[in-house]
């Protein structure tokens, strides 16, 4: 796949404060890259710099046609920005009717009236907004307004679509619908999309790759499941809402990795971290298997006796809090919870593979900052 954007050593400052520092980020043509991170992580700034809406303090962005930000005339910028479109969290509609909003960008591009009408009509159909064509935007619902905002960008047939928190503050059905529309349109048209969100759940359905930003820096990028399974640091794990994030110490190296003392138990994990080092470990709750206390079946490397502390039903899945020498959360279906008679106080055995344990270096934050 060709490269749509290559961001290099990009830095941006506001009032003398560095709000963004990205060493390298590549966006490939036709992919959906989700940029996630808490509020104030620099996501929107990154988006604006890539969309040529702001000038970086320093650094380079190379665009799909090979042109470089540092050596760009105003004319080049205009040409490139006409191939990009942006959708913000707020719809920011013009104080006109729906049709005029959809038409706005086309008008600016000098598209002749008949062609404009054809494109706007097609977009209204795609969005299911035909009956609202002549409605003034002040009478639209929140969901409808967001659709118009999306349509206003998509009708320009952009090569690149930037989405800055497009679903935030919408009710659930509207979110679903809008995400579906975004996803369908982007895929059908082969558009490169950069999707910024503070909510990583939101983007999992649509993202080909995930980039995590924290404190103005890009801390990890990769396939979504990779990032979730193996967060690069404790901070990333914490942002992604990782459960079973525990402190430990490598007590000895083993054939397949290391034995790590966590709480009062020793667990086996795959890692290169040398003996004696403090580490953070993460055990995915969905990979923890609950077994009867006397069971010896299965091939999981880690098997520990445990006691149920609490069981919480959350619909079809139950969340079980256990003590196995350290606190551990596990997920079971509600049916197997009943079959196993899981109640607080019950003793059993937990099993998980060495590969289900993700080991991270002990970071500065854990050292009590």
């Amino acid at each position: 796949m060709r490269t749509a954007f290559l961001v290099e050593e990009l830095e941006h400052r506001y009032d003398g404060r560095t709000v963004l520092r990205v060493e390298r980020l590549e966006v490939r043509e036709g992919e959906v890259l989700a940029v996630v991170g808490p509020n104030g992580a620099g996501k929107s700034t990154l988006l604006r710099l890539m969309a040529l809406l702001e000038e970086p303090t320093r650094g380079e962005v190379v665009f799909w046609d090979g042109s470089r930000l540092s050596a760009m005339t105003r004319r080049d910028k205009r040409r490139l920005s006409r191939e990009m479109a942006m959708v913000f969290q707020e719809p920011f509609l013009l104080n006109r009717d729906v049709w005029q909003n959809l038409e706005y960008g086309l008008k600016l591009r000098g598209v002749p009236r008949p062609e404009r009408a054809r494109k706007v009509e097609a977009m209204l159909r795609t969005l299911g907004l035909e009956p609202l064509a002549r409605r003034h935007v002040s009478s639209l619902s929140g969901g409808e307004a967001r659709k118009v905002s999306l349509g206003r960008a998509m009708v320009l047939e952009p090569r690149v679509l930037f989405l800055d928190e497009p679903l935030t503050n919408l009710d659930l059905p509207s979110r679903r619908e809008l995400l579906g529309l975004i996803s369908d349109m982007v895929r059908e048209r082969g558009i490169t999309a950069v999707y910024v969100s503070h909510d990583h759940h939101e983007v999992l359905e649509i993202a080909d790759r995930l980039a995590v930003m924290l404190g103005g820096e890009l801390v990890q990028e990769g396939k979504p499941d990779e990032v979730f399974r193996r967060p690069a640091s404790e901070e990333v794990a914490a942002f992604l809402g990782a459960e079973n994030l525990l402190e430990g110490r490598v007590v000895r190296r083993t054939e397949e990795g290391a034995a790590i003392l966590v709480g009062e138990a020793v667990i086996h994990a795959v890692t290169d971290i040398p003996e004696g080092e403090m580490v953070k470990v993460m055990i995915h709750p969905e990979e923890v298997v609950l077994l009867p206390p006397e069971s010896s079946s299965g091939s999981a490397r880690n098997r520990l006796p445990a006691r149920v502390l609490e069981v919480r039903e959350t619909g079809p899945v139950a969340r079980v809090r256990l003590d196995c020498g350290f606190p551990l959360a596990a997920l079971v279906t509600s049916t197997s919870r009943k079959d196993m008679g899981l109640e607080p106080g019950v003793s059993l055995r937990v099993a998980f593979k060495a590969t289900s344990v993700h080991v991270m270096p002990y970071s500065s934050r854990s050292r009590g900052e």
Partner: protein
Amino acid sequence: MAVGEIWQGLVEACKLIARLDPYVVKVTLFTLYVCALATMAGMVLGIPMGSLLALHRFPGRKFLVTLVNAGMGLPPVVVGLFVYLLLKRRGPLGFLGWLYTPKAILLAQVVLALPLIAAITMAALQDVDPRMVLQIRSLGAGRVRTALTLLRERRLSLLAAVIAGFGGVISEVGAAMMVGGNLMLRGEPYTRTLTTALVLEVNRGESVRAIALGLILLGITLLLVWGLTLAQQGSVVGRALRASLSRLGSWKEGR
């Protein structure tokens, strides 16, 4: 007694207006002409100036913003004095020979209207969410188009700016008096406006004419405020007004 006199004056003044007294009509028309021209000149200069100050960052911007804001409170007499000093025979612009001509009034009124229009335009555009500006730019609008689109978005505030400018110049007397001289030329008002004429009539003890001129001035002001209110509140007339304003906007924007 005095109340009776005022009442009588009012009645007589109404008769004078209803009769279309030639003197009163001529002074009114001249005033409307000069003030409209001054307001238009103020718009032509003030709207771009306000937009520039609101939407762009450049060195010296803060100073200009302060200047424009301070200009909103300029005492007309001081403006009159300033323009007088510029235009008097030995002044820097004395060679123009504008002093005691309508051009002098026009110049003084532009100086008065310009900061009003620029400052209200600036305030209206600064009110816009900066992300709205980015949104418009991201749809492909350059600097000028962005400003035009935003001005169209804030057209009611712009209307307020224009009305403030017009209201400011039509009601001032100090500058017009000082640089215009309140002259009649061959029976026609040459530099005589409603306000300067009113002052003269009062000095002459002609209360009836003074009241008539005052009523006209008041009427024009009320009409303006009424128009603005309608446009803002969305009545039938207001909608028509808004529609024509937005046509004006699309004319500027479309190609």
